[in-house]
């Protein structure tokens, strides 16, 4: 029951809201309420998982192995909580400003359903189904605003990501073929006896599918056009909630189910991750429009996730999870605040910028420390030196582009001088998110232990 609630609340609410006109105030607040209820249920579930270990249940009362399994462990619960938090912030932000499309609240709730579903499922095919639920609402959301700019962005986003989803489906079929099961636990048990070649091809297809979602360097081509084309709240959702699918997928399928193949592919991950960091940072430095620079910064930030995954080991996995959490919170804050005006908003943006750069009061510092710890825990000195240099250079470049954006958006922009500050309630949302980031940075213990616990779910792999 406790396992079904986080899934059922947004689902039912989404279906009800689909029939209502989302532009009405009441519908918007109903959506906020039910999403908050879903978040509370997720937190409750998280506390339970934290105390008593993973919970599983088979849908419909079927015996295990026949029915579809739902499963909550520390990793899934953490990601579900994170994504719902981001969605809630974006939804409140948009509701306060006035929703302009009747489908917006319903789409957000259905996306919440898809995201919690895929983080809490124990079945690979169900993962695909929930994944599609989340993606389809994302396609609709990208078109939110319905100006020609948003429609073009939605078209690009839908076509590229559909291709990614089909690749994922193909990988699932391949996994089913080689293991004869769709249950993630059975897959994990059977994969060691599978021959290497099919397993490697399957994991390569999986990697491409998730990298397209993440917007990793060679697969990033769709990302800038989409992030700059959509409205701020939608960009925040895409980079803060939907991109988590990519990191979670890489952790779940790579580190959990296919650890041997992840180990084999580690050098490739490290190279792609480094390229992504450098490419994203350099492009972001050269961009003038804040939204565009933030989009390239998102490409750079996922590179850190990949590096942490490639270095592996419990420290590396914990770092990957931590970087994902930090990145998703700070990107949400940055996308939401970059277009607002008022001095507190400027301060909030600065907090987000510091978090991306990795300067102490903000939570981003923790991520940087975890990354440095991971790179120092590797055995060989050249790898250590390269990784530390990369993280430092990436941080320095991030500092440059973040404060370029800050300068353009809050100091130089002429409309700043005359324009009245934005609606107070909207600013309050942004400031609240900024203080959350600061609070997590000042009192890091809970987040650190959560990410370590989540990393302990994954089987151990030797550090290369």
């Amino acid at each position, binding site marked *: 029951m406790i396992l079904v609630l986080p899934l059922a609340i947004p689902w039912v609410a989404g279906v009800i809201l689909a029939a209502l006109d989302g532009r009405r105030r009441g519908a918007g607040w109903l959506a906020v309420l039910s999403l908050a209820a879903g978040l509370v249920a997720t937190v409750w579930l998280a506390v339970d998982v934290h105390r008593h270990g993973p919970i599983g249940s088979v849908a419909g009362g079927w015996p295990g192995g026949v029915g579809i399994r739902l499963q909550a462990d520390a990793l899934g619960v953490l990601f579900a909580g994170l994504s719902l938090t981001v969605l809630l912030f974006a939804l409140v932000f948009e509701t306060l400003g006035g929703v*302009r499309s009747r489908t917006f609240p319903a789409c957000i709730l259905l996306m919440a359903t898809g995201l919690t579903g895929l983080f809490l499922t124990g079945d690979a095919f169900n993962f695909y189904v929930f994944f599609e639920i989340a993606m*389809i609402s994302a396609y*609709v959301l990208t078109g939110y605003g319905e100006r020609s700019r948003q429609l073009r962005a939605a078209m690009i986003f839908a076509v590229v990501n*559909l*291709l990614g989803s089909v690749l994922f489906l193909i990988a699932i*079929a391949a996994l089913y073929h080689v293991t004869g099961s769709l249950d993630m636990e059975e897959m994990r048990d059977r994969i060691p006896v599978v021959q290497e070649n099919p397993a490697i091809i399957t994991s390569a297809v999986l990697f491409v599918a998730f990298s397209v979602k993440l917007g990793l360097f060679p697969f990033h081509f769709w990302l800038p056009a989409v992030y700059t084309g959509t409205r*701020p709240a939608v960009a925040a959702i895409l980079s803060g909630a939907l991109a988590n699918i990519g990191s979670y997928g890489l952790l779940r399928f790579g580190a959990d189910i296919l650890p041997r193949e992840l180990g084999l592919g580690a050098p490739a991950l490290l190279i792609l991750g480094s390229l992504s960091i450098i490419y994203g940072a350099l492009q972001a430095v050269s961009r003038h429009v804040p939204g565009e620079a933030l989009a390239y910064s998102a490409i750079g930030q996922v590179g850190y996730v990949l590096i942490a995954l490639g270095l592996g080991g419990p420290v590396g996995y914990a770092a990957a999870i931590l970087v994902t959490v930090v990145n998703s919170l700070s990107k949400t804050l940055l996308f939401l605040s970059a277009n607002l005006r008022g001095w507190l908003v400027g301060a909030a943006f600065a907090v987000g910028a510091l978090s991306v750069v990795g300067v102490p009061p903000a939570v981003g510092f923790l991520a940087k420390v975890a990354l440095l710890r991971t790179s120092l825990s590797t055995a060989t000195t050249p790898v250590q030196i390269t990784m530390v240099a990369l993280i430092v250079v990436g941080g320095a470049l991030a500092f440059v582009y973040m404060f370029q954006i800050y300068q353009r958006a809050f100091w130089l922009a002429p*409309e700043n001088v005359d324009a009245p500050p934005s609606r107070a309630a909207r600013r309050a949302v942004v400031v609240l998110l900024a203080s959350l980031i600061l609070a997590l940075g000042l009192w890091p213990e809970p987040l650190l232990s959560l990410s370590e616990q989540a990393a302990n779910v994954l089987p151990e792999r030797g550090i290369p």
Partner: protein
Amino acid sequence: MTLILSLAVSILFGSGAYLMLKSDLIRVVIGMVMISHAASLLIMASGLTRGDAPIYPLPEGAPVSDPLVQAMTLTAIVISFGVSALLLSMVYRVYTSHLSLDLDDLAAAEEREETAQERENIVETAGAQDEAAAAPSPRQDTHPPNPDGDQS
């Protein structure tokens, strides 16, 4: 049978990919549909076993064919059906706002909007410098600096 299926999958996927690279949006959508059909066929191919129909009560001792792949394929077909409908409606919306389905035209529209926006930025900066030019410049739908920071 596996050979025939894999040939069919590769032909479907290849022609789908070819169509997706065309500049006409309808062809892109058709290419997408073909690629998702390739995936459905691949699921069928991944669980090909000979045997009786897996209908309860199961025949004693004889092997039954795998029912799971068919259930998965059915789900995948339904999803791709819904997605194709969504894609077509998005193409229609793009058509009503651009009056064209050609990707080159869309790219040209993008460029026009961007240059308009840049020109606007320059005008704004100049306007801020001599302070007197408080006259609102004609805005495009791209980046109006209104207080709530909406982009539309």
